């Protein structure tokens, strides 16, 4: 008899086995159904479109675990081994079943190759699992919090492969066909039984143990974190789908209206803790953690929307597993600065800030738990069209002696400079606008502002989830832009820029001409490329650059500001510990500038210390929020005299010899 795959060797109760397979598959399907039905309970299930980026990400992140390797090579290898070991052994089982039931092909050389591959996969799997166990329980990687299932899943998987090898080994102990030595894993175990008889006696026991353990794994799969195997890829694909408009109206039900992709997010999280590591709030030990938020939201939705939760036993079990009724505790949600750092590192593209905004909206609608100062800021924004409680008349005060054309007063220009509330009203941030105007005038660009008519773009309202107010601001602002025929916009603030560029279009009627929107760094770079501005004044300075979240991570603008800085003679740029996509938030975004929270930390001080550590004389930024947050941190962290904070406009203006009077002497 030629060498071939052996099925059910010495096992009589084949049919019992198939009944058990049926049960475990049924439980598996029920579990998948129950979790997918939670996804489907989402409000506004957006249409899923074919996206090349999605497919590419699916390949790179799904199949190769690109993001898992990033910053943690061992974790990447570990996951790669476990994943491919798992998939490979699973496929092996599928082939074997096909061989038995459908077409017999696992014989001769094909079988030997098959068997050899399975041995390799099994070994990879074991290596991966051992690494995981060591990382969790011996090396104790700090971002991993070891929960019961983390251990049990690893142990169970390990047990399944180990018994798999034993089944093979014991069979080989009885009968070692020629060529079977390719099954080197099994060969090791074949020396375990002391005699052929003993081997024959224990074989069915080991076989059954292996089978039951494997079937249990299948049944448990969708109920455990292993579900990320299915939900993760969906999540990776969904991440590149266009932003969804959640139109909430008066009729919307109470509670957070989670979207389709939020629900998938919740079910896919594996608690790897990468988000916590980079979260400015969690790492400053504020009472918030994106991982915990996602976990709470998972339990919350799982209990409410799961068809199984109608069954009392199941519901009670779920409640017990989270030790209390799953609720999303409302205090935590205000700490998130919406910096997007969590999304940047999550292996399966979960960004906690998006579902957090959904919860914020439901808290805003409920009203009574909104932090005090935030209530005031929003009311101010509604009344004054800016969060700074300044009357409209004062919007142009920063002009001072500068001649700034007013497009609402008859001036004609191609480019509209959208100054923004903070840049208009905060005395420190006004320097940004003054310098920008000087540069533009110097370069001979035809531009104008909206003068006193300028509105608030609504960023704060959007970030804190006040959707009604945000819509009002969108309507007002779009109306204003339309009235004055504005088609080309440059913004001071990455926040306004991001809204205009990425979120306003969602509210525009289809077919309307899209607005051209740029951040000032893009305009400056263009002016430099066209030779309209030439930094000439030499400034022997060491500077570092702070990437604003809404310019960098939200809009991928990392290089323009750096090229501008480098273009100044004498200026050398040094990077901080965190820069580019890994940049650390100043703590001002997401509405944090507009509220005071219990136990809040000065996130800006963490950042300013990083800047000071570079030994730079100046930290440059390109956002009015960052500017005032960091400026304040310089004072509170006692770095005055050692480190200065400047907006890029101010630095460029200096190098063009356009600096503010009296300030010139302080640089260089």
């Amino acid at each position, binding site marked *: 008899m030629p060498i071939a795959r052996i099925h059910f060797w010495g096992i009589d109760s084949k049919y019992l086995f198939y009944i058990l397979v049926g049960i475990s598959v049924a439980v598996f399907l029920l579990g998948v159904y129950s979790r997918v039905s939670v996804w489907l309970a989402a409000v506004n299930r957006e249409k899923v479109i074919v996206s090349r980026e999605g497919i590419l990400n699916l390949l790179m992140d799904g199949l190769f675990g690109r993001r898992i390797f990033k910053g943690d090579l061992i974790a990447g290898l570990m996951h790669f081994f476990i994943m491919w070991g798992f998939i490979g052994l699973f496929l092996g089982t599928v082939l074997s079943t096909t061989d038995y039931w459908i077409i017999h092909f696992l014989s001769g050389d094909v079988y030997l190759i098959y068997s050899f591959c399975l041995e390799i996969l099994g070994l990879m799997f074991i290596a991966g699992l051992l690494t995981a166990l060591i990382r969790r329980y011996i090396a104790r990687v700090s971002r991993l919090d070891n929960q019961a299932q983390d251990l049990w899943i690893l142990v169970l998987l390990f047990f399944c492969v180990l018994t798999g090898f034993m089944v093979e080994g014991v069979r080989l102990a009885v009968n070692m066909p020629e060529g079977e030595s390719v099954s080197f894993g099994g060969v090791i175990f074949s020396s375990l039984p002391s005699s052929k008889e003993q081997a024959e006696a224990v074989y069915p026991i080991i076989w059954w143990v292996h089978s039951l353990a494997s079937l249990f794994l299948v049944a448990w799969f969708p109920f455990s974190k292993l579900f990320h195997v299915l939900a993760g890829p969906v999540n990776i694909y969904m991440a590149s789908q266009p932003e969804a408009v959640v139109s*909430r*109206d*008066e009729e919307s039900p109470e509670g957070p209206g989670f979207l389709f992709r939020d629900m998938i997010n919740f079910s896919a999280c594996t608690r790897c803790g990468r988000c916590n590591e980079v979260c400015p709030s969690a790492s400053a030990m504020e009472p918030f953690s994106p991982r915990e938020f996602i976990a709470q939201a998972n339990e919350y939705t799982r209990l409410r929307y799961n068809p199984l939760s109608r069954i009392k036993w199941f519901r009670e079990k779920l409640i017990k597993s989270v030790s209390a009724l799953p609720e999303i505790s409302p205090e935590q949600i205000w700490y998130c600065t919406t910096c997007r750092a969590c999304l940047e590192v999550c292996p399966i593209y979960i960004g906690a800030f998006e579902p957090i905004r959904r919860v914020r909206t439901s808290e*805003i*609608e*409920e*009203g*009574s738990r*909104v932090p*005090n100062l*935030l*209530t005031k800021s*929003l*009311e101010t924004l*509604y*009344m*004054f069209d800016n969060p700074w*409680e*300044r*009357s409209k008349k004062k919007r142009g005060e920063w002009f001072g002696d500068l001649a700034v054309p007013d497009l609402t007063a008859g001036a004609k220009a191609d480019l509209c400079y959208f100054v923004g509330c903070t840049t208009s009203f905060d005395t420190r941030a006004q320097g940004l606008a003054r310098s920008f105007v000087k540069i533009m005038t110097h370069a001979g660009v035809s531009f104008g502002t909206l003068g006193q008519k300028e509105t608030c773009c609504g960023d704060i309202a959007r970030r804190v989830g*006040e*959707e*009604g*107010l945000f*819509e*009002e601001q969108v309507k007002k602002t779009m109306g204003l832009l339309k009235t004055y025929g504005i088609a080309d916009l440059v913004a001071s603030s990455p926040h306004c820029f991001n809204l205009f560029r990425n979120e306003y279009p969602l509210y525009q009627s289809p077919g309307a001409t899209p607005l051209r929107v740029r951040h000032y760094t893009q305009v400056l770079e263009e002016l430099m490329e066209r030779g309209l501005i030439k930094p000439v004044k030499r400034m022997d300075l060491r500077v570092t650059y702070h990437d604003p979240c809404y310019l960098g991570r939200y809009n991928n603008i990392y290089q323009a500001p750096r090229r501008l800085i480098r273009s100044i003679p004498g200026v050398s740029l040094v990077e901080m510990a965190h820069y580019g996509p890994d940049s650390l938030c100043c703590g001002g975004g997401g509405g944090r500038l507009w509220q005071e929270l219990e136990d809040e930390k000065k996130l800006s001080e963490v950042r300013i210390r990083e800047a000071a550590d570079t030994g730079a004389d100046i930290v440059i930024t390109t956002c009015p929020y960052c500017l005032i947050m960091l400026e304040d941190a310089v004072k509170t962290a006692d770095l005055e005299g050692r480190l200065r904070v400047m907006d890029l406009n101010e630095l460029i203006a200096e190098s063009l010899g356009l600096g503010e009077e009296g300030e010139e002497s302080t640089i260089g």
Partner: protein
Amino acid sequence: MNIIVCVKNVPFTQEVDLVLDASKQDVKKDNLVYVINEWDNYAIEEAIRIKEETGGHVTAVTLGKEADEEVLRRCLAMGADEAIRVERGDLNPDASMIAAILSAVVKTIPHDIILTGVQSDDLNNGITGSLIAERLGLVHAAVVNSLKISEGKAQISIELEGGQDEMSQVTLPALFAIQTGINEPRYVSIMGIRKASKKEIKVIDASGLGLPGEDLQPSLIMEEMFMPPETEGAEMLQGDAGSLADQIIRIIREKGVSL
């Protein structure tokens, strides 16, 4: 528990440079933003909280023009069950007229508790609440900074001078003029206001209340309104911290404070 809250729409005047109008009887109001009177915001919040705890029915009442219904919509959004606007027509009422009109309206509605703000942001009389209570013959307390309701009685705390509080028990029905800080008023979202604007607001005409003519006469005659006269310019102190401190102490002494 039936609760009536008297509220007022007032111009927001912080951060605004007020200008007198031609009559010199009032400030120019056309460019001002209107908001709920701060004290009334606490009063309506308190009413909603009582309702949430003990059950009941909250009615918000205002005396004003159609534009002032904004304040009522806000109350409805916060959780009031009913809103009434008393149309003031051409009247330009002072505190005693407001009290006369509001009490005539309130009288016709069942009530256990009436809440007003201690004062209003615009004219700061601080007497409307007490005047209403007098007219209705109700027990009343002003500057209430804590209010607990149980079994037909109210445990209240009244803010006295010098940071002292006076605790008392009042049998209902009663009127309380609510002080700011008694609670933390909830946020009212734009969506909430939109939702509330679908609810009906009942309108009653002040002239149809059958009030005697003298009640509709102001008891206070405004002669002239004027800006406070500008005083001399400030004295800017110069010098280092030590000499600055000396100068400040000298000034304080000169002004008669014994140090």
